[in-house]
């Protein structure tokens, strides 16, 4: 109970952080941007995310005792402070957006007369309760919830694709120009965002040297799940219809018939899992934000920073005026995430290398 997480716990934690609100919107984004080759984009996007995770974790492994907050200052000096501030802002904004999209789905499909403010605040309150206890309970919760989350999703989508899927929806094969590949890949990489919490979590691992391995396994699992969901949705609905729906991952459950006669209305099951998916995504992010702030301020405890973050995250969540604007905001924020995955760690590595080799320090 030293508030450190084991390697399997890290894997599970990353998986549950990644599987979040994107699972329902990813098919639509991909169908719109890259048409029948969407499944390929998931694979490429997963590959690029693995690359990003490799960059993030190999930077972190250079400083196994320190978080991004400390080693960025150590290597980049003043710019490090700027990057730290940016990272915290990014994490808080992402938390807010995730909780908003979570709330939108709950409001549209389940609680249509509950104010979205209530949904968002309850979810944040629940996450505060968990995150106050530190990283280990979060990881343990993830361990418990992961099978509950994954098994029904796999079984339900498998039934749908077996009875209603038409794989010819993925023809014609490979007819993308370079631009579309970039757009599609980016859409996938965005839905893998969340593993940049590793920037902060590596010193919390019992064995920081296995961080690269853990993130590889986690991203591989998530890629398989995403691939499976994207293939199912597009095989059942077709490219055009998928791109027209806002939440195709859930809508597909409402229009299938064959499996529906055995278990009608399977969307209810998925929607109850939706809270789990949202919960396990928001908690680590909220924790990462509070933990980051505590490290910036060199405070001994992170707990006192969680509650003040809630109103901030809530305001950010309520800022976009509708779903489409929220999704646009997410895309804008995600550029920042890509920056922190691909650019900043490389800068740090270079600076670190220069300091060690050239300046001999």
């Amino acid at each position: 109970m030293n508030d450190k997480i084991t390697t399997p716990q890290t894997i599970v934690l990353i998986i549950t952080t990644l599987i979040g609100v994107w699972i329902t919107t990813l098919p639509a984004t991909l169908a719109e941007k890259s048409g029948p080759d969407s499944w390929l984009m998931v694979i490429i996007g997963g590959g690029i995310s693995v690359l990003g995770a490799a960059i993030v974790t190999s930077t972190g492994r250079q400083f196994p005792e320190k978080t991004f907050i400390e080693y960025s200052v150590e290597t980049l000096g003043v710019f490090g402070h700027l990057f730290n501030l940016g990272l915290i802002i990014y994490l808080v904004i992402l938390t807010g957006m995730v909780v908003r999209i979570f709330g939108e789905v709950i409001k549209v499909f389940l609680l249509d007369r509950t104010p979205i403010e209530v949904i968002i605040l309850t979810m944040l309150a629940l996450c505060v309760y968990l995150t106050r206890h530190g990283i280990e309970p979060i990881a343990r919760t993830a361990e418990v919830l992961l099978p509950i989350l994954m098994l029904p999703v796999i079984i339900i989508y498998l039934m749908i694709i077996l009875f209603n899927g038409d794989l010819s929806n993925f023809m014609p094969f490979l007819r993308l120009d370079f631009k579309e590949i970039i757009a599609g890949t980016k859409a996938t990489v965005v839905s893998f965002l969340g593993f940049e919490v590793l920037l902060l979590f590596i010193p919390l691992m019992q064995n920081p040297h296995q961080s690269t391995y853990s993130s590889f396994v986690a991203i591989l699992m998530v890629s398989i799940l995403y691939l499976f969901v994207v293939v199912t949705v597009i095989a059942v609905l077709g490219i055009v219809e998928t791109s027209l729906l806002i939440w195709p991952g859930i809508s597909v459950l409402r229009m299938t018939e064959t499996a529906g006669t055995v278990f009608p209305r399977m969307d209810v099951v998925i929607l109850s899992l939706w809270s789990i998916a949202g919960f396990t995504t928001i908690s680590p992010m909220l924790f990462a934000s509070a933990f980051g702030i505590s490290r910036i301020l060199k405070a001994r405890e992170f707990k006192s920073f969680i509650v003040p973050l809630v109103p901030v995250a809530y305001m950010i969540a309520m800022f976009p005026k509708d779903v489409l604007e929220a999704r646009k905001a997410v895309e804008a924020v995600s550029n920042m995430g890509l920056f922190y995955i691909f650019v900043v760690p490389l800068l740090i590595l270079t600076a670190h290398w220069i300091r060690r080799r050239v300046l001999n320090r």
Partner: protein
Amino acid sequence: MKGKVFILTVLIGASIFFHGCWNMMDLEKKTFIMMMGIDALPEGQQDKIKVTLTMPVPRQLVGAEGGGGPRPETPQQILQSTGNTVYGTIRQITNRLSRQLYFEHMTAIVIGEEAAKGGLDRFLDVFQRNKDFLRMAKLYICEGKAEDVLKMETEMEPLVVTYINQIVHFNSSRSLRAINYSIGKVITELHETNGNSLVMRIRPEKKEAVVAGSAVIKNWKLVGWLSDRETRGILWMLKEINRISVETSIELQTPQKGLVVLDLVNFTNKTKAKIQDGMPVFYINMRGEARIVEKEERIIKKEENLERYEKPIEQAITKEINNALQKVQDEYRVDVVNFGEHLRKYHPDYWETVKEKWDLMFPHVKVVLNVDVKIRRQGIFK
């Protein structure tokens, strides 16, 4: 320790027994709408529509003796109103209702002929935009007025909706004369082809309805009908046939006088397209099995040569398909057999060049049919 166990028990118990009922709605405060009909209003008010809803009257459904008020005992109640839009009209109906309308069990939507001729696009949006409406509900287009279907007094089933949905359920898998499209499927089809699809046809009579054949939708508007035989001709070509084992009977004139009836099962089709001189030619290969179910011939043979029926039945199927094709190609000029989709999927380069003028090209597309039927069984009599 004991205190903790107690608290845990209380918490688990509370989460089991007191979970989210805070905006509880009593069942009897809700009206479960089973079916919806949409009609156009007569001359002079074309842009208005009439929406008809049916709700079951549970008391009558159970069939309790001695119950019932002064009203005639129909198991369903009709609600009607006129308005400009579907949802707007539904909201007007609520003005006269003491209960809340609940649509999640609505499994059939009927659109009247005149309304469909004016265009489906203005009615269908509400069903795809709101999660209250089931996308697996069946969509019918009615010959005549939709309200006649809803007001029908069926004898076989207490509720009209169960009656017509059951017809479709059996018809589509047994006799292959109705095109079993849910509203979600129709909407998908319309989006993919930009407004061309087939929809189930329903024809109400006094006490029963005929669900067979299909309505041809071109450019979101109803342009005509396909008879049940023509619908089957189209269904042979569609991919849907691959998935279900088809059992349909076909009557055959044999060389000797008299008809033979055959059941067809396990039909599969493979479509290939080739581009010849700038025009696509579709090669459709079909294979299937048949069994004899009735024979009018008086000659009883000790050793029946089943193969002698194979050629005629292949010809019969080919003829049926050709008739249907002729109708959609020459009369309606609308691609409801997904040839355009096939080109888009398997000949994307070619499709890019023709997709603008596909509507004009489709009537001239050649189709080469190759039907292969094996007769495996003749029943339990020689």
